[in-house]
């Protein structure tokens, strides 16, 4: 299958080499990798710029993916394999300076390396909301309050336990932590946390069938294909308890269990629940470097902090600046398939731009 798609979808390298153009891709998460892979196959020279020491972004830190429970590293390895070392990967650097000269951009990186490129693709992605900022939920204060990313690490290390080393008998997930919350400045829905919470709830039940699992949600957003099946399975197979209510606060008892207060909005009564482990479903925020990058490249963000696009329906891979393209979660929360599709679309558009 790989062979067919390679032969059909891309022009022969020999044809395009004389028109070879160069692109700088900022951010090497899955959006950056996928675009790099496509653009280099079109025959262009690609620089993949990464602020960290490794490529792969947040997907590299995840264990399994909803709704199919595919291993994140399988997906990432497939993408890296497709890239096939064709891009020049520059790690531990960010853009220090950018100047436009005619149709080209001259970039200076933080290691003083100079690049001259014909176009820029911004795939700076997102950052995870820092749960400490929602102080009333006790992350960093109570030892058995963890985040969804912490839980992924525990799954990857096969070590899902409370602080005292015991397996949890009762566990709760709090949806919308740092999302849909004006008090922390994030009005937006992060889109992927509901599905992640249901996925993780099922995984906990798989691991500890006798553990009681509760999901505390405001609205369950099972919007995509197969998500509803996953929710159905969480109910029918795993008997996960879904409670519609948003946590007002968490506390701790002498045994270091977490006591949570919410309203069961469907029963219409205040509800108290003591759990051994509390998992906060932390949402997506714009990358912490986004503002800096915007000032260097002359880009604009919307009021939610994510990058503006020229037209959210028809030109969603174009930024406000000519020659600078955008893809992935830097323009708002997306699932992995959405990110990859967006990235491929941007690569196609970029190719047309470069050949014009």
């Amino acid at each position: 299958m790989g062979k067919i798609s390679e032969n059909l979808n891309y022009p022969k390298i020999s044809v395009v080499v004389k028109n070879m153009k160069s692109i700088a891709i900022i951010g090497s998460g899955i959006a950056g990798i996928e675009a790099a892979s496509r653009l280099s196959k079109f025959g262009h020279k690609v620089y993949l710029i990464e602020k960290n020491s490794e490529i792969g972004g947040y997907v590299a830190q995840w264990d399994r993916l909803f709704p199919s429970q595919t291993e994140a590293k399988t997906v990432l390895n497939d993408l890296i394999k497709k890239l096939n070392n064709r891009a020049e990967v520059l790690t531990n650097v960010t853009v220090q300076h950018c100047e436009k000269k005619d149709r080209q951009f001259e970039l200076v990186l933080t290691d003083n390396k100079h690049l001259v490129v014909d176009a820029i693709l911004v795939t700076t992605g997102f950052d995870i909301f820092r749960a400490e900022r929602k102080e009333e939920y006790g992350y960093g204060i109570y030892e058995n309050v963890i985040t969804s990313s912490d839980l992924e690490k525990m799954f990857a290390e096969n070590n899902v336990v409370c602080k005292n080393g015991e397996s949890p008998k009762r566990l709760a997930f709090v949806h919308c932590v740092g999302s849909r919350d004006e008090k922390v400045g994030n009005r937006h829905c992060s889109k992927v946390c509901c599905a992640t919470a249901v996925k993780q709830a099922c995984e906990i039940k798989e691991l500890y069938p006798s553990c009681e699992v509760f999901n505390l949600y405001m609205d369950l957003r099972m919007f995509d294909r197969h998500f509803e099946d996953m929710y159905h399975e969480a109910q029918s197979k795993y008997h996960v308890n879904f409670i519609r209510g948003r946590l007002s606060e968490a506390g701790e008892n002498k045994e270091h269990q977490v006591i949570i207060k919410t309203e069961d909005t469907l029963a219409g009564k205040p509800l108290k629940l003591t759990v051994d482990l509390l998992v906060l479903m932390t949402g997506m925020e714009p990358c912490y470097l986004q503002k800096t990058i915007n000032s260097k490249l002359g880009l604009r963000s919307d009021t939610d902090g994510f990058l503006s696009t020229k037209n959210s329906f028809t030109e969603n891979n174009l930024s406000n600046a000519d020659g600078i393209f955008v893809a992935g979660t830097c323009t708002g929360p997306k699932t992995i398939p959405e990110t990859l599709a967006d990235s491929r679309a941007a690569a196609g558009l970029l190719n047309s731009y470069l050949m014009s």
Partner: protein
Amino acid sequence: MINFGYQRNESATLDLDTTHSELYKKLLDKEPSAATCISCGTCAATCSAGQFTDFNLRKIMLLCKRGDMQSFKPIINRCMVCGKCQLACPKGVNTRNIVLILNKYLHAGKISK
């Protein structure tokens, strides 16, 4: 009246064809943030009055929107105006002001200027 041995109950339906939420419209004029409530229940979760009485701001806001004032008239004054709900509300709704406005209207018969 002839006693047939049974009685007819008032309808318990929220009949949106006949009820009109004038109070809610007035409330929105006075406190526009009321419109952004998403019924998440954070206010009711943290409410001290709600732990011991049937005061429930989420429910009150909803009933007000539906035009059913009589259901919450007896409980609206159980709020102690401590303001914890306002601290906890993720939408930044001015919950305290809403309680004060509703209280004034239901018990003094008017909404103050």
